[in-house]
């Protein structure tokens, strides 16, 4: 599943916060709000589900090789975060749903028979 398909398939209000990203195949998801934890445990080509809406989240995503970030609870996305995401080619989406709901949808989408 590509990250654009994932975003479209969730059937929720998923705002594509920045249009310029590498539309990669995603292989996993990880939900955490501690960036040290994401750095240590998230896998490359995964999607990070978080409430951390700032440019350090993009830096960690880029470092780990994540394909995208879903920011939950409609947290505002600062301009410098989106600028960094464009530069790094990391997809950033925003949704009013909680991390629990988004992770559930992601898991179900990835485990569809």
């Amino acid at each position: 599943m590509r990250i654009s398909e994932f975003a479209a398939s969730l059937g929720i209000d998923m705002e594509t916060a920045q249009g310029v990203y590498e539309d990669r195949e995603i292989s996993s998801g990880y939900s955490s709000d501690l960036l040290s934890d994401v750095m240590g445990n998230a896998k490359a080509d995964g999607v990070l589900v978080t409430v951390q809406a700032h440019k350090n989240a993009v830096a960690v995503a880029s470092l780990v090789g994540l394909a995208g970030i879903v920011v939950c609870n409609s947290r505002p996305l600062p301009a410098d975060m989106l600028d960094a995401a464009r530069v790094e080619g990391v997809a950033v989406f925003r949704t009013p749903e909680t991390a629990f709901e988004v992770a559930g949808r992601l898991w179900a989408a990835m485990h569809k028979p």
Partner: protein
Amino acid sequence: MKVLADLHNHSCLSPCASLEQSPSLLARLARERGLGLVALTDHNSALNCPAFEASCRREGLAPLFGIEANSVEEVHVLCLFGTAKGALDFGLLLRPLLMPLPYDAEKLGDQVVVDEDELVIELLDYYLGAALTMGFDELCALAASSGALVIPAHVDRPMFSVSSQLGFLPPGPYDAVESMRRPEPALCGGLKAISGSDAHYPEHICRRPFAVELPEGALELGGEGLLECLRAALRAGSLTASWEGQ
């Protein structure tokens, strides 16, 4: 006497700081820009404090020596000492608590220990930006019992702050809080907020100092004496933050 102070500055030891920002450059620009009291506070380490001490002596500037420690909840807290040894000893306590995360200097930045003449002593091979495996309350208590001034950093920031990570300022042994802008009173715990430059690049040095009223001779006293004078002034709120105008 009124002293222009800045207690939050990084050097080339912090992975996210400019390589150009040696302790000696920090001391020189701090003096040129009018600071009287400056602290070095790298992430989770005090290894550049000896170079900073020598550099400040050369510049005739009063130094304090610190660490910006990163709790397990990823809350940053400034822990400041009167002597480089005090900060180095506290750094030794933190070292085994630092989470071992994969460190790629290309992506995260170099972490350079230097001397006062910018000669490289060591390139650290473990990541200083990681969190410590110790909760914020316990970390603040450890710093206070080690004799540090304890100042939760940038309490109003949307990341790495008590407001972003905990949602509130829990009671603790704080001497002040640091804020980027005029903070909500609830984030100050009844203390006066200081401003701080959180300088990672030379152009950041002295961008948000605060003015503090210290007894005559406190700067010359240096060391623990200076630290205790500053602690008393901070607790008494005898200071003016950058947003109040100086």
